[in-house]
């Protein structure tokens, strides 16, 4: 059987899951919800495995699946089709594989979720009629207790179904994004994941803070999305197609390198990528996005959605090759982001915010790689990062869950013994994050840095400094949370549905570096990775060790104290600056939010509205004037008639 033809079914199953859960989730039992929510992604992952393995064992020729025409107006015809090459296979594996593991994990993680009864969903009154009847006391108590239980159970199921419905919707959109053969369909998926992200960040909407974080993420990414849309339409206007492969061919054929058109198009595409991947000017939403449940942070805000920007740039790399200034901007922004986010990660106390800043920082590495033209290295880092960051988030989720939703790392401690699997997961994930040898992160980051060195030693230096910082911030939570004095009594331990994904991800993290995806079939081969040891690779490899050692000196052995360091007058403001994410939130607040609010306040009573109000007032005035003549007195009317007759006679006489 031709497995590759099953490609079209892959996004369909999560979509079906979403529809089932959205329409009938209220009536399903909890286990049924888990079966539908996880099962749909499992089927997708299975199909993706079959399709991918057939593709990889074949000739690696891109496979194009035309499913039909989406929009057809006159000459404009937008196909609805999927495109499979080594790049989309990579993304497909990441999305479905890690997506499945996280769904499985979430099935347990969310089962004990203390979701309040949702207000937004219209709920029928659940007070039974017995309560209104005077009963003897014990019976009343029993029945009311039953009601409470029932209400709670149904509220659980509702939140549970809602969660998996959103997750499945996100999966469907993400798969459309990575498989799409044209930019418009890609944009559909792009907006779909944005929606999923918004819904899931604000999943616990009882807390207004979460809703605010969701809105912030939505609006910030929308800034980038607008740029992407403009870029997309610019490409269509100039090259008369939405089909990505055709666009790339035409761009290379028609546009000389470095001219205005490719630069403008690449810059606009970059804008979209920056928003979605939380890079420098638009990165502030990601740390706040941690308001969502931890599996969401793992899936959307670490492994898949935030790497969509990297995928987009890799997908349209031909345009970027034609625009060297933009490509240089990609590299510079990436390098700056990885340093800034790394510094912020150093001082955070919330375990998820540390991971969020590290995500921004690691995507900065990917952008750096993209900027220097190391396409396949960037994609490789995307793959390994997705694995170990998912591992870290899931381990963090297990810790958070077992410590009763405690987020601050300084309120945890000594969990090494009581949570061995979480400890080893976090340990190995941090090792991969800081690129210690023999982990997957080592291979990918090493490749990136050696490629960067061949282009620009300055950027390489920044990357190495980043690697040092990475070593510090990734082992800081390890030492703080898992070593030292045990602070929490761990009462519950995760079940198999949480442990299995952790184990599988540990294996992938350790051996993922051996995965060699044939990305060279997609990208032009630019760099020969030099595997001979030299000074550069030595420094590259040693930087993380320094970082880990510093973290150990501060947080494990206690040779230095962060408090003492912070006590210096110069360093404390610096710490605050890092903690606030370089004050960019405050900057944007002053630059955009406050002026906008002031403008809105200034124009509170809309100026344009006054015009319409005036019309209404004139009408009202006329009405009052004329109705005053309606005295209800018959003699007045008769007088009016007489006066009218006199006037008419006068007029008739005149003319």
């Amino acid at each position, binding site marked *: 059987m031709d497995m590759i033809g099953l490609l079209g079914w892959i996004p369909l199953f999560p979509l079906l899951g979403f529809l089932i859960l959205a329409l009938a989730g209220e009536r399903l039992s909890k286990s049924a919800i888990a079966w539908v929510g996880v099962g749909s992604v499992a089927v997708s992952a299975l199909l993706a495995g079959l399709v991918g393995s057939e593709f990889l064992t074949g000739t690696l020729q891109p496979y194009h699946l035309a499913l039909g025409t989406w929009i057809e107006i006159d000459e404009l015809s937008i196909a609805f089709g999927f495109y499979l090459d080594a790049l989309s296979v990579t993304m497909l594996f990441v999305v479905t594989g890690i997506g499945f593991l996280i769904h499985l994990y979430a099935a347990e993680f969310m089962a004990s979720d203390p979701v309040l009864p949702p207000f937004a969903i219209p709920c029928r009154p659940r007070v039974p009629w017995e309560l209104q009847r005077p009963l003897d006391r014990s019976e009343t108590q029993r029945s009311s207790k039953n009601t409470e239980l029932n209400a709670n159970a149904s509220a659980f199921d509702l939140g549970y179904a809602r969660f998996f419905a959103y997750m499945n919707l996100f999966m469907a959109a993400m798969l459309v994004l990575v498989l799409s053969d044209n930019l418009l369909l890609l944009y559909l998926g792009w907006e779909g994941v944005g929606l999923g992200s918004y819904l899931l960040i604000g999943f616990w909407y009882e807390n207004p803070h979460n809703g605010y974080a969701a809105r912030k993420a939505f609006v910030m990414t929308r800034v980038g999305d607008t740029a992407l849309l403009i870029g997309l339409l610019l490409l269509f206007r100039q090259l008369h197609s939405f089909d990505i492969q055709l666009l790339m061919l035409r761009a290379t054929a028609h546009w000389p390198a470095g001219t205005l058109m490719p630069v403008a198009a690449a810059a606009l595409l970059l804008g979209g990528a920056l928003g979605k991947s939380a890079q420098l000017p638009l990165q502030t939403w990601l740390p706040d996005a941690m308001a969502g449940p931890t599996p969401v942070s793992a899936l959307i805000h670490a492994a898949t959605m935030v790497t969509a920007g990297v995928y987009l740039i890799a997908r349209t790399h031909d345009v970027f090759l034609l625009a060297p200034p933009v490509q240089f901007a990609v590299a510079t922004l990436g390098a700056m982001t990885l340093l800034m986010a790394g510094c912020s990660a150093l001082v955070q106390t919330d375990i998820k915010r540390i991971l969020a800043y590290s995500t921004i920082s690691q995507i900065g590495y990917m952008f750096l790689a993209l900027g220097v033209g190391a396409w396949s290295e960037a994609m490789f880092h995307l793959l390994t990062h997705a694995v170990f960051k998912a591992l870290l988030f899931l381990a963090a989720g297990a810790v958070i869950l077992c410590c009763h939703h405690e987020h601050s790392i300084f309120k945890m401690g000594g969990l090494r013994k009581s949570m061995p699997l979480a400890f080893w997961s976090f340990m190995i994930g941090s090792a991969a994050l800081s690129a210690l040898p023999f982990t997957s992160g080592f291979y990918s980051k090493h490749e990136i840095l050696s490629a960067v060195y061949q282009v620009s030693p300055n950027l390489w230096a920044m990357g190495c400094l980043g690697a040092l910082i990475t070593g510090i911030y990734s082992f800081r939570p390890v030492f703080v949370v898992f070593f030292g004095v045990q602070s929490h009594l761990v009462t519950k331990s995760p079940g198999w549905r949480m442990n299995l994904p952790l184990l599988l991800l540990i294996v992938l993290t350790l051996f993922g570096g051996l995965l060699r995806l044939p990305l060279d079939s997609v990208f032009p081969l630019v760099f020969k990775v030099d595997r001979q040891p030299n000074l550069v690779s030595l420094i590259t490899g040693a930087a993380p060790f320094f970082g880990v050692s510093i973290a150990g000196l501060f947080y494990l052995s206690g040779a230095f104290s962060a408090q003492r360091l912070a006590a210096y007058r110069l360093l404390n403001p610096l710490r605050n600056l890092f903690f606030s994410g370089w004050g960019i939130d405050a900057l944007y607040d002053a630059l955009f939010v406050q002026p906008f609010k002031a403008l809105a306040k200034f124009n509170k009573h809309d100026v344009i509205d006054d015009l319409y109000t005036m019309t209404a007032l004139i009408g009202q005035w006329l009405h009052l004037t004329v109705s005053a003549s309606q005295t209800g007195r018959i003699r007045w009317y008769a007088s009016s008639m007489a006066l009218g*007759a*006199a006037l008419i006679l006068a007029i008739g*006489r005149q003319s």
Partner: protein
Amino acid sequence: MTLTLFYLTSAVAVFATVMMITRLNAVHGLLYLILSLLSVGVLFFLLGAHFAAVLEVIIYAGAIMVLFVFVIMMLNQGQTTIDRERAWLQPAIWIGPSLLALLLFGEMAVVILFGGSAETGSVVTAKQLGMVLYGPYLLAVELASMLLLAGLVGAYHLGKPALKSGARS
């Protein structure tokens, strides 16, 4: 002779009408009104409209005025009403409408007098009238009968005792 009679009758008609609109007691007003109508009837006779003159006397001054008499009797207007009417008839009240009406009269006079002069007096007999009435004006006769029927029904309905005060409120 005719002209003298015309002026005399006109004077009576105007005088009776002026008296009628200024009477405080409705019954007195009604009697002056009948006088006015009768003098107009005489004018009709002088103008050669004998049939109209007869109708004026029989129907207007006779039948319709009897209705007024009945109603005035039913309403039983007493001395208090007369006092109130006196209070209502202050110059401040009637001067404005009177000026307006005089303006209208002035305009009509101008229109009439500028229209030139002509003699009247051609006699139209009842037979001529009947031939025209039941010839070209047959439809108008039908409409008039409908109007009278509607008036009859309306008067009956409005005058019913069942529509007492409070019946609908």
